[in-house]
């Protein structure tokens, strides 16, 4: 083996060629890196390397108070920050045994599902860009801006929202939301239909995605998959239904399930989930409108949060899958240890297995369809 100091990889004297993709490869989303051994254009083995965005969030969490940690959760999954915020808040609420008022839960549900739509739109757009279809990206990103408008009306931030507080939410839905939602619902559906028309039956798209990186359900469970990637493999599993939190057990929604676990299934699951999210928001909004105007938005929470000693784990279904927080409290105002269980971490570790035997160009499709968010992956 010759050592190549520039790429920091071992060059194989066999016929296999070791190539280094990333971390600044355009399809590697900034911070991901894959070292692949290839035979011709077929990948014999691929090993992802991560840590290029490791910012020490867990260590920071031990030095921040419980409220101060909320902004850090924004910066983990920055495509759907609200879902991460709520996941963390619910974990602390479980630790303290706080019951959140129903109106606050509905506000959270509505905002989280909006974030889910925005996240899936980014994924579908980027998946298109990486496979050479630039147009859907432009349709979807205009649509996403309208969702960001709602976030902005809520608390001024577009991306890193720092949504909610421990024990509830700090503000009611913005006034403009009530005017905006009926039209937004239609435009979301329209953008999805346009994307659907551009991609779903497109010959090139089908050639690039159907049957690429198929994965079996047993393997997926063994590797710890959750979320859309697991559902694409044919496992009907969604924490919103299996461990219902908030009002999800009262809503009527389908859980789309794929068959083969290939890139196309992952794409279709996301497209269908956006539709389901719109339905959920409709139902949640109807429930919200029945609530009295002055219903409380915050539970009774002490100013300085000092949970009693103990530890617990709580997970919710974020756009990427199961995002869980394991928090140990030692009775002080700072968490003793926070462990974040990011969904795409478990998915990405199987990347070598997923792309084995495929073409190099398929790795790009595979990576995009997994929706790896580096901030959440490396923390």
């Amino acid at each position, binding site marked *: 083996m010759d050592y190549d*100091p520039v790429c920091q990889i071992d060059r194989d004297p066999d016929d296999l060629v070791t190539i280094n993709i990333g971390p600044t490869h355009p399809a590697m989303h900034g911070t991901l890196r894959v070292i692949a051994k290839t035979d011709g254009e077929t990948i014999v083995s691929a090993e992802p390397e991560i*840590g290029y965005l490791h910012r020490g969030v867990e260590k920071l969490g031990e030095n921040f108070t419980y409220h101060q940690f909320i902004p850090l959760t924004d910066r983990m999954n920055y495509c759907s920050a609200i879902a991460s915020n709520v996941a963390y808040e619910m974990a602390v609420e479980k630790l303290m045994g706080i019951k959140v008022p129903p109106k606050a839960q509905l506000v959270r549900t509505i905002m989280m599902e909006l974030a889910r739509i925005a996240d899936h739109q980014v994924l579908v757009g980027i998946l298109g860009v990486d496979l050479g279809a630039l147009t859907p990206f432009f349709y979807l990103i205009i649509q996403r801006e309208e969702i960001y408008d709602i976030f902005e009306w809520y608390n001024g931030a577009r991306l890193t929202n720092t949504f909610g507080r421990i024990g509830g939410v700090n503000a009611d839905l913005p006034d403009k939301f009530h005017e905006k939602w009926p039209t937004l619902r239609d435009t979301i559906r329209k953008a999805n239909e346009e994307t659907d028309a551009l991609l779903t039956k497109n010959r090139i798209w089908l050639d690039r995605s159907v049957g690429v990186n198929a994965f079996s359900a047993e393997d997926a*469970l063994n*590797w*710890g998959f959750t979320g859309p990637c697991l559902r694409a493999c044919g496992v009907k599993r969604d924490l919103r239904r299996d461990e219902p939190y908030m009002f999800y057990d009262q809503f009527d929604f389908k859980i789309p399930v794929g068959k083969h676990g290939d890139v196309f299934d992952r794409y279709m699951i996301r497209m269908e989930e956006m539709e389901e999210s719109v339905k959920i928001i409709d139902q949640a909004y109807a429930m919200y409108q029945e609530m009295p105007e002055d219903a409380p938005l915050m539970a009774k929470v002490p100013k300085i949060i000092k949970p009693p000693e103990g530890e617990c784990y709580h997970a919710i279904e974020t756009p990427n899958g199961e995002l869980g927080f394991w928090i140990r409290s030692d009775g002080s105002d700072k968490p003793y240890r926070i462990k974040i269980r990011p969904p795409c971490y478990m998915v990405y570790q199987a990347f070598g297995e997923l792309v084995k035997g495929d073409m190099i160009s398929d790795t790009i499709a595979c990576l995009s369809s997994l929706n790896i968010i580096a901030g959440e992956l*490396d923390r």
Partner: protein
Amino acid sequence: MSLKERVQRCLGDDVIAITEYRGDLGIEVPKGNIVSVLTRLKEDETLGFDFLTDLFGVDNLDYYAKKKKKPKKKAAGEEELVEEEEDKGPPPPRFEVVYLLQALKTNERLQVKIRVPEDDMEVDTITTIWKAADWPEREAFDMFGFKFRGHHNLRRLLMWDEFEDHPLRKDYPLEGKGEERHLSYD
């Protein structure tokens, strides 16, 4: 039968301590038996914990230092039997490895803990049971220094290879010790 009883029946003497907090059941098992314990939990018909949610380390250095200074003032019930014993005996081992399991059929969750002393950081790998343990074990090695016996590729995951410390240990400062990464192109 409650989950607690089923776990106790399945594992028998291997359960050293049981904690329950806000509905989360946690058990502590001996370090050497972790592979057999997890296999039994996975294969037992009444339990079926067949999904590994996560695996991570905890450093208890500060936890016990604080405990010593002010002995427990709260009524018992929260944090269980282990601490009541610790006043008498030697201090408990510094590190913990926590395994979060889930049963897909019943949606029950279980935390399994082992205690790891500082002078013997070797733990058996569980990548033979779940492939999902691959990166979490590497991360635990990176962040705390556990040596997972039998892991096929125990390298640093998040920090670079030449990094020497284990950042999530409690005695490592938040802002680091001024490490820089240099690559030499010779």
